[in-house]
């Protein structure tokens, strides 16, 4: 098998290559400031990581789905071990200097284990969900998937890394959906989180709670489940203000600034505002590649990482934004197709989980640059500067290529979308 020529899903690979090249060119532009900084040289590092990642992706394509399936649990436990290790020896970096997301040896930062965990947890969750003969019908049946995602999620929230936490919740939810969990149950699963968010307004939370009771009566779960749901919703609705007090001041500030960026123009709201100014002043066609004044004059924060999409908006305008969106959309549609045609439920779930993970990244990161999402410090796949994430993204591409090749239609129509 290993020596046999693989039917590569070229559309997927080409889209990923285009996204990466687009991304690296923006990383280059992000370094072009009027007063040179270290960011000016980072595009070379990113290019190096890109080639490394291509190699890793190639290696991933040589690894069968069976082998992947077999490797799932060791990889998962390795990720958990590294995340536990981070709690004790984690280092901060860049815009997230106060968190512990980096693994370093002797002061040299190796990478962010949470990037790897984004893949291994998808694999583990896919493995758990694929063992279900029938889609889960009750909350109790979901204890195993919940545990598989919950343990690394708690470890990541301890760093604390809200962004990655959101990604975990996002792909876990998407994979439940993909495994055939019915809509009402999905809503019930999500209900405590919704309660938590709505707890800030008593009236809205009350309305939500009545709606939930109606859903419970209609869906008719087990009695104790219904009681459990009601209790958790009340608990979260009441707990939320208490949790709010427990949040670190910068987290509170970020949330507040999300709600009203004009609140503190100079401090926290400054980042979002500068990003909006950069994007808005870009207009239809942008200020020209490498020419954006907001970026050149260093008004744009984290222009090569979290806010890289603002550089796209400023320099290449709405046209450049649409180009990026089109590439992402093509990627997502292609991966959905791969997930649909996968040979078995495990690989299908893996494919859809990886898709969901990227999708949440794009939604949260791009939404953040326009103040549609809170600032969480989540990178944009293929664009944001960062080796670990580039590597993880391309590993995912490699896995997807393999799944596509082994899937139905993989051999017959690799170019069919």
């Amino acid at each position, binding site marked *: 098998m290993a020596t046999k020529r693989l039917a590569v899903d070229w559309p997927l690979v080409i889209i990923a290559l285009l996204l990466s090249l687009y991304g690296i060119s923006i990383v280059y532009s992000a370094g072009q*400031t*009027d*007063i040179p900084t270290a960011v000016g040289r980072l595009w070379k590092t990113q290019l190096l990581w890109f080639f490394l990642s291509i190699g890793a992706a190639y290696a991933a394509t040589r690894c069968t789905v069976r082998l992947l399936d077999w490797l799932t649990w060791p990889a998962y436990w390795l990720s958990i071990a590294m995340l536990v290790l981070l709690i004790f020896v984690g280092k901060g970096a860049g815009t997230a200097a106060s968190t512990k997301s980096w693994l370093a040896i002797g002061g040299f930062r190796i990478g962010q284990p949470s990037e790897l965990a984004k893949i291994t947890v998808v694999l583990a969750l896919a493995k758990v*969900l*694929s063992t*279900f*003969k*029938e*889609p889960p019908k009750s909350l109790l049946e979901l204890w195993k998937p919940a545990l598989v995602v919950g343990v690394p999620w708690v470890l990541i929230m301890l760093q604390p890394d809200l962004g990655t936490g959101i990604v975990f919740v996002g792909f876990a939810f*998407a994979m439940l*959906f*993909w*495994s*055939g969990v019915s809509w009402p149950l999905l809503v019930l699963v999500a209900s405590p989180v919704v309660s938590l968010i709505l707890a800030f307004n008593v009236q809205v939370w009350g309305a939500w709670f009545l709606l939930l009771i109606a859903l419970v009566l209609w869906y008719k779960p087990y009695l104790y489940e219904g009681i459990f749901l009601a209790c958790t919703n009340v608990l979260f609705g009441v707990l939320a203000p208490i949790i709010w007090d427990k949040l670190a001041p910068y987290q509170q500030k970020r949330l507040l600034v999300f709600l009203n960026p004009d609140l503190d123009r100079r401090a926290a709201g400054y980042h979002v505002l*500068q990003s*909006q*100014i*950069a*994007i*808005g*002043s*870009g*207009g*239809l066609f942008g200020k020209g590649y490498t020419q954006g*004044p*907001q970026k*050149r*004059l*260093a*008004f744009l924060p984290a222009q090569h990482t979290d806010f890289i999409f603002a550089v796209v*908006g400023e320099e290449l*305008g*709405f046209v450049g*934004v*649409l180009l990026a*969106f089109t590439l*992402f*959309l093509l990627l*997502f*549609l292609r991966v*959905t*197709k791969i*997930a*649909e*045609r996968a040979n*078995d*439920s495990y690989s*299908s*779930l893996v494919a*859809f989980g990886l*898709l969901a993970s990227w*999708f949440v990244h*794009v*939604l949260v990161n*791009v*939404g953040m640059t*326009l103040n*549609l999402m809170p600032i969480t410090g989540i990178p944009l796949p293929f664009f944001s500067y960062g080796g670990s994430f580039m590597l993880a993204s391309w590993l995912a591409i490699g896995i997807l290529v393999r799944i596509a090749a082994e899937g139905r239609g993989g051999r017959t129509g690799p170019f069919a979308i």
Partner: protein
Amino acid sequence: MSFHPNDMRRRGIAANVIVTGVLIFLGAGFFRTQVLQHDKYTLQSETNRLRELPLPAPRGIIYDRNGKVIADNVIGYTVSVLAQREDTLRAVLQRLSGTINITPTQIEQAVRRYRRAPTRPAVILPDASFDVVSVLEEHRSQFPQMNIQSSPRRFYPDGPIVAPFVGYTGEISETELAQPVFADYKAGQQVGKQGLEKAYESVLRGKEGSQFAEVDARGRIVRGQGGARPDLLPVPAPPLYTNIDLDLQRYVAGIFGDSLIGGAVAIEPKTGAVLALYSAPSPDYNRFIGGVPVAYYDSLRTDPRKPLYNKALQGQYPPGSTWKLATTVVGLETGAVTMSDHMPISCSGGLQYGNRYFRCWDKRGHGSLSLQGAIAKSCDVFFYQLGLKLGLARLIAGGVSLGMDAKAGIDLPEEKRPRFPESLDYFNRKYGRNWSQSIVLSMAIGQGDNSQTILNMARFYSALATDGSAAKPEIVKGKPERTPMVKLSAEQLAQVQTALVGVVEGGTAARSAIKGVQLAGKTGTAQSGTLDAFGKELNHAWFVGFAPANDPKIVVAVMIEFGGHGTRAAAIASAIIANYLKVTPVSDITTDG
């Protein structure tokens, strides 16, 4: 899990719809921001990165009546720093002090300026020398926040000579900024602080322009002057034409030299045009421009001659015998006396009043004099009796109607009101009810509770010299404003003028006559209350006069602090008048012989 292809297709479509929908939603968000709100964000982007650097307007040039320059502008250099935070400013200043000489005081001053107006460049050196500027230009790349501007700098070519009326400019202070008058001023701007510069600030300031520099997020200037957006050029102020005769002003200053302390005012009596106004000694306000050096200011402040005190406008001196004309006018106005009247007691060197003997300045006595003669000889005994005849109430009321308690109204902000009782209530307040009538004796000869400014005495004499109306003294050319003051008939006025001619021709100022021109005036020797080293009281020397007597072109008031007898002031006044009328004073000829 259900893994039937149909199920997968259904979920796949649902997933595609969600993904596409979300991306369209995000795309719509970008469309709104980038296309619909493009203008709003473009504006924000510009305010982000463009910093306005003020371009000071050249102040109006001040000319004398013959087109000679009193106040000019020369090119100066201002060094400032654009900083976003105070620590940045301090850091830059710290580093700058390694390159050029900056004192800790200058650093603190710059920080204070920054606090007042953080958006404007904080001025470090308001008036940098060319040497300093060239050193800084060499190191420019090390200080990206630094801004060197050539800006107009005030210069007074005649320095101390014109200082008493022209004043000076300086950076606007916090107190000034708080006043509504300065509502449209910004911290760091220059503003007139004294004299004409202050009085005509609204005319002289011009309109400030702007330059735009592009700065990065840390406030470093990336594209400097003119690169980012075209400059808004400043609008220079129009010139200011004054009545001053600069040649005469120079002559007056020259007479006072370094040794005399006092002041002189020369007025055109018919128009009120101020020809010269000088206070000696006078500071050099050129050194005040761009911040006065501490050492220089201290030397001025501690100088016992008080150079910062304008003796012509602020100095309040007992007018002495020059005030006898006021007593005369009040006497004539009330009909208490005529020019030919004699007083009952002839002068034998003094007058006994109550238990006190009031001496005449000439202890030999003047005998019996008419009012005209008493003016010429300045006989105190005559005026004691005239004062008693008038009574204190009439004398005070008369003095008030002659403007002795009011400002002359010159267009300079420094002028002080003379000290003169507004009514008898003044004495009630000061001495209780038990004051002696003998006060009127002192008041009648210009002593006692009466302190006049040199300017106000010049104004009074300009009324005597003309038709009895006094013109408002004006430095800047304007429409003359005359107010009736001395209410005497033309005949009576002519008599008074003749009496004043008598002072110079055979009277107390006989040695100050001018050849070919009839000079009229009155000397004054006022008791200062200050004793000299030998316990003898020092006197202020006064002379107020005008010439030619029949058609006066100039009124001059001169006062020399501790100058001794009034004849000394008379000599100076006569020289000033002669210089103005281009004739030779007699005294110059006679001293030769």
